[in-house]
């Protein structure tokens, strides 16, 4: 034990581990965050991929057996269910005769068009009818010696550039926001307890009167909180693949599995963020007058990095500088490690350095703050 800050670090760790509340706070976030996310994704996946049959009540099905079997192929089944709830299709009696004489046939699709949840079903029914219409019309044109292409002046061709990975980024980007947030939340209680808590239980004055520099003291406390922050992040990272085995992400074409190495690398990338978060929390705690006040302020302060990450995540805003700035840099690294993009070593290094520099400045800030008698005695 060469360095004084290690003495403080170890003591604070011992103290914090015995504090079940801190431990629970750190670990419950890591535990329940991915769980909640998985539930949300589960709902999303089943909603987005459900190609369930649409059951439609068809009146006069006997008049148009080919149409009914065509609809059947498109997953639209005739059912005799409760009429009020489903879509009702009425085929007119003169279907065959009008078809033969090439006259328009009115097939009535009756449903509550204001009902949002059934809109995709109604669209499917209508699309199927349109397709059938085109098939019949094309056949008629061809019989009259006209190419059906005359009916299609412009065709919109959809080319989906989404790859498995890029789709994964869309989904797992949100997951990474959770990972980043777990860094901020897991160490929070420890940070408050070693600072505002230390002052509130009147042990700060005595500790500051010991032959240890303020910087070493602050470093020890910050490292203790950061240790918890990293632990929380690691737990979240471990939980994610585990939790996602229960979500059929492969239906969306998303590959949620990442290797142990990726996980380890992610945890490493997050260490500077953990230090940054912890020293920021220490600074805010020492500025507050009491434990309660510190909790309130920290919650506000934590909104800042969270907002930044969320805004970036949802607006997809990009700027070259973001790759080098604290938090945004790590966010991008986490994202690109998912999408399989090559990660610029320079960006990772510069991002880590800027984050560490900021954390170091905050550490000095806290030490400076402790020179003030106001902060020490909580005046």
């Amino acid at each position, binding site marked *: 034990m060469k360095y004084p800050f290690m003495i403080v670090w170890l003591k604070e760790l011992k*103290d914090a581990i015995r504090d079940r509340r801190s431990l629970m706070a750190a670990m419950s976030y890591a535990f329940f965050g991915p769980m909640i996310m998985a539930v949300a994704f589960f709902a999303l996946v089943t909603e987005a991929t459900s190609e369930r049959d649409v059951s439609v009540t068809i009146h006069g099905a006997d008049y148009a057996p080919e149409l009914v079997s065509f609809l059947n192929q498109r997953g639209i089944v005739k059912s005799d269910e409760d009429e009020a709830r489903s879509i009702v299709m009425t085929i007119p009696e003169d279907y065959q005769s009008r078809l033969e004489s090439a006259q328009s046939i009115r097939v009535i699709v009756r449903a509550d068009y204001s009902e949002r949840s059934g809109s995709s079903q109604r669209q499917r029914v209508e699309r199927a009818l349109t397709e059938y219409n085109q098939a019949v019309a094309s056949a008629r044109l061809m019989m009259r010696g006209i190419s059906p292409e005359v009916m299609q002046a412009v065709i919109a061709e959809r080319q989906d550039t989404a790859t498995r990975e890029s789709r994964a980024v869309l989904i797992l980007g949100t997951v990474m926001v959770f990972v980043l947030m777990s860094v901020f939340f897991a160490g929070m209680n420890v940070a408050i307890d070693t600072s505002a808590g230390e002052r509130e*239980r009147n042990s700060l004055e005595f500790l500051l*009167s*010991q032959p240890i520099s303020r910087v070493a003291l602050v470093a020890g406390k910050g490292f203790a909180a950061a240790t918890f922050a990293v632990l929380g992040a690691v737990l979240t990272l471990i939980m994610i693949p585990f939790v996602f085995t229960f979500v059929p992400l492969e239906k969306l074409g998303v590959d949620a599995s990442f290797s142990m190495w990726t996980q380890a690398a992610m945890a490493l990338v997050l260490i500077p963020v953990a230090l940054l978060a912890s020293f920021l929390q220490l600074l805010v705690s020492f500025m507050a007058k009491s434990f309660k006040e510190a909790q309130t302020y920290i919650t506000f302060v934590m909104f800042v990095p969270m907002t930044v990450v969320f805004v970036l995540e949802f607006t997809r805003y990009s700027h070259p500088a973001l790759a080098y700035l604290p938090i945004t840099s790590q966010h991008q690294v986490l994202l690109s490690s998912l999408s399989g993009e090559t990660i610029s070593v320079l960006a990772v290094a510069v991002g880590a350095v800027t984050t560490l520099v900021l954390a170091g400045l905050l550490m000095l800030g806290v030490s400076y703050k402790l020179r003030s008698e106001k902060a020490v005695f909580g005046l």
Partner: protein
Amino acid sequence: MIIVNDLKKSYNDVQALNGLSFHAENGQITGLLGPNGAGKTTCLRSLYGLIKPDSGEATIDGTSATDDPLNVRRHIGIFPDKFGLYERLTPREHIAYIAELHGFKGATRDEAVEKTIQDLGMADIADRRTQGFSQGQRMKVALAQAIVHQPKNLILDEPSRGLDVMSTRILRELMFGLREQGRCILFSSHVMQEVAALCDRVVIMVKGQVVADDTPQALCELTQQASFEDAFVQLIGTDEGIMA
């Protein structure tokens, strides 16, 4: 050896220390006596460099507390005004923590901790978490933290508050023992009997200034009062803040 020379410190418009000067010799117990708000705690805090005086200087064994607080703190044991314990740690861990901060390691540290526990007669509580400790038990832990590194100088801020008779005796014997070893003991108090019984020398301060500095007997003679308490009242000119 603690020397305080012309210390001045003010908070906004309150002059807490106003040219305070005194010294505490090795091998003596020096009592810092004064009514509430006299500046006792402020004075002691500036001794261990927690408060920076506006002017003046405090030196301990020749080292200035303002210039080199870390070095000064290595040579003093502190029993602070406010002492809080870590409720999830045991007294043994508390004492070991402070010993480590003073540079004790491994077996040396464990020996020092064990010796302190024996000296203070606290073996029965040494390995219990401090949550729920009585005031007296807390006091003992704080005292143990003050003396574990065998400091040359001991600074105690009202050490006897909240102690029962047995603990007070332990404290008194401890202080006498340390005096025998030639250490410098400075403690603040506003309890008359305690000061009269313990001190070789009394420094009476009022409003941040020393009004008397002598042995208890000499102060009685000076004021021509039979009891030390009456002498004190006459010296400070008011009976404010005295606990008989």
